[in-house]
């Protein structure tokens, strides 16, 4: 976790310096935009993490290892794809949830499948942005071809990680 803080802090410092030299960027406007995007998370994130901890407490660790561990193979990848497609929220909410699951023993290919399904299917994003902005004809075609992507990514990850 120390590395994580370091990565983000260095990146933030570097972009802030770059922005300082960039003509059209005002620090105050950026912080206002950031706070605007942060505000809904201040309630959502704690609630989501508490919920995930309770759910993880309810599911026995052996279950995670058997159903979603690295030895669960392709069935585990398929299950992870379904779970990932149902994960709500942006990365600020779903990444902590997946982190709870990864502590509980989910395998790497299964996590790859879960995150891929979450990012390409993203039900919440489809309903709030894609459907109103792109229309049904676009959405159903993109969904149809995207359903196969998460199991594919998980399967490839199984090959890569051996």
């Amino acid at each position: 976790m120390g590395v994580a803080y370091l990565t983000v802090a260095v990146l933030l410092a570097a972009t802030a310096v770059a922005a300082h030299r960039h003509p059209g960027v005002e620090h105050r406007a950026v912080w206002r935009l950031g706070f605007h995007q942060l505000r809904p998370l201040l309630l959502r994130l704690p609630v989501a993490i508490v919920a995930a901890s309770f759910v993880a407490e309810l599911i026995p660790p052996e279950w995670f290892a058997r159903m979603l561990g690295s030895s669960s193979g392709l069935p585990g990848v398929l299950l992870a794809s379904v779970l990932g497609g149902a994960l709500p929220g942006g990365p600020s909410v779903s990444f902590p949830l997946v982190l709870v699951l990864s502590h509980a023993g989910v395998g790497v290919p299964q996590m790859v499948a879960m995150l891929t399904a979450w990012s390409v299917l993203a039900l919440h994003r489809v309903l709030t942005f894609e459907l109103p902005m792109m229309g049904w004809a676009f959405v159903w075609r993109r969904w149809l071809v995207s359903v196969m992507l998460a199991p594919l990514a998980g399967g490839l990850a199984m090959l890569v990680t051996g």
Partner: protein
Amino acid sequence: MARSRGHGLLVDRVTLFFSVLAVSAGTAVWWTRGDAAVRAAFGHAAGLLLMVLPLVLFAVMLAAYIQQMLPMGLAERWLGAGSGVRGLLLATLAGAVTPGGPFSAFPLVVGLRGVGASLPVCVAYLTAWSVLGLQRVLVWEIPFFGADFAAVRLLVSLPLPLIAGAAVMALTRPTRGD
């Protein structure tokens, strides 16, 4: 109940969903395992939150800086005329470097459609933005899951936008030729 979107500390649908989940799962934990288990789960959640919250704070500010600095008109100029495999490759590259959340990606796709980009190009672009988005990798994935995991996931995700774009091409060929 939920207030309208975009006003401060609102209880939106996602928060409501997690609240219901927390209360019902918490009750189930208390029922089956008793007080101690509920306290242990709370302690675990509090520890995780303390670890994650500063990360989220930094990440959101970082994302805001990136959003302010990169010009959005660039991608439209690039992708409007692209077609075939070349168009799909350009779309993949553009999707990977597009910063920001759905607030920035979707208006861009609407713009792309407007300037004549084909359906497969738009799908490849959106898929690349979803699975290869470099900003999300730097800001969220590496801090949360480590560089090793991010590298494996990126490697296996590289072909996905092309596959999605080509599949849409096959799907739409009868009605829309290139």
